[in-house]
């Protein structure tokens, strides 16, 4: 794909920081999911932050895809936190009858990283030491 990237996935120690930069269509969302899961496997990541602040909506497909991503990440040994859900997007999700399920959410990237680094969480430098 040419032009500005739709998403970026950065590695920081054993964490991945995935940012969505714009509204994604369903196909792009699925490609993002595949890409992220592939990288979790490749880097044996322990924690994943998904920043969705740039998403214009989180409809049933979007919310479900995020939940699936978190579940697939969990099966690969990584914990996921979703950050940046805008208040209006969150309100629409609730009105729609959707939520992020058991996937934890945090206000922003900083809080999301703090969540992963919490005592008992998936610290960036010590694989396998955290409680699962």
């Amino acid at each position, binding site marked *: 794909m040419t032009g500005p990237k739709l998403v970026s996935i950065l590695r920081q120690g054993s964490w991945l920081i995935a940012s969505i930069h714009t509204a*994604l269509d369903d196909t792009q969302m699925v490609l993002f999911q595949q890409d992220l899961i592939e990288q979790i496997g490749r880097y044996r990541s322990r924690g994943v932050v998904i920043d969705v602040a740039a998403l214009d909506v*989180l409809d049933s497909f979007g919310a479900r895809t995020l939940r699936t991503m978190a579940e697939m990440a969990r099966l690969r040994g990584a914990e996921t936190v979703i950050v940046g859900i805008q208040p*209006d997007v969150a*309100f629409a999700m609730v009105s729609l*009858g959707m939520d992020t399920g058991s996937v934890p959410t945090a206000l922003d990237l900083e809080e999301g990283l703090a969540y992963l680094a919490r005592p008992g969480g998936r610290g960036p430098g010590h694989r396998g030491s955290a409680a699962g």
Partner: protein
Amino acid sequence: MSAAESVGMREDRRPHDDVAALIPMLRRIIEARVDDAATADDLVQETLVRVLAAAARVEPGMLEPYAIVTARNVVASMWRDQDRHRRNQHRVVDLDLPDPPDQDLLANEERTAVAEALSRLTDRERATLLAHEVSGQDTRSLAAEQGSTAGAVAAQLNRTRARLRVEYLLVQANVEPPTERCRPVLLALSGGDRRRQREVDAGRHLLECDVCARLSQPLMERAQPRDDEVRIPISTDADIVAARQAARELAARLGFARTELTLIATAVSEVTRNIVRFAGTGEVVVELVDRPRRGVQVTARDTGPGIPDVERALTDGYSTYSGLGLGLPGARRLMDEFAVVSEMGRGTTVTMTKWCGER
């Protein structure tokens, strides 16, 4: 490239590609009517320029009929110019020389079509129209004669003109409307009467009826471009994003709060996805309405298989594809008004409205 940008680019590119694909057809149409190769070339070029200029205003999927009509018009107007020129010459050199009949064929066809269309009006419609258009009688004096008001006469004249345009097109195309819905639809389009267009479900009929799709093109082209309505043809995932963003942008003009805009965009996303998943293709029309209150109305229609049990589809937990059953009931919760009409084998129309301001 963002989804929005890719959608925009595709629309930029499309008309040129589509118009280029029309060239062989346009050449056939024009060469069948014009002997001289160089003239035919010029007319093909002129047609292309006109079609390209109009491409953005032409309904989706209607570029080809539009091009056919344009090609015919370009040829006809060349003949009219020649004819006029020749007649003026005649005035100087030989007033009695009759016009060669073959050259006048098209102009005659047109006059005949107008006469035939006029004959299809009621006597009263015809008399009023001719008194106004030909004799120049104003609406006030017409109203005095008819014991009516000037406004009512003007409205009646507009309806008559709309009918005349429809009948003229039917005569010119030499077709009888294939269904009894055709005339009401064409009439609503011709009159630019949007309430009536909704009543007769003109959008759906144009998806289904080839004759009306072909005939209605000049009727729609004639209409003023509207800035309070957006139509998005739907066939791919990217169109879902385009539809919800168009809805958000249009609704933003009414001063909806950001939260409400996101509710609208989310609802549009859900119903548009249903089109892509179940029907394959369709369209989403977003329009601003002001009755009974200001609001934004979204119509999502497709010609898909239809929903067998609408009541059940509106029930939470009803799952139709990959475990997702939230589409319709979810969208209904996000909007103020919500209606689904579905007919097996014909398709589904979802109409939903969000009112602006307090509920």
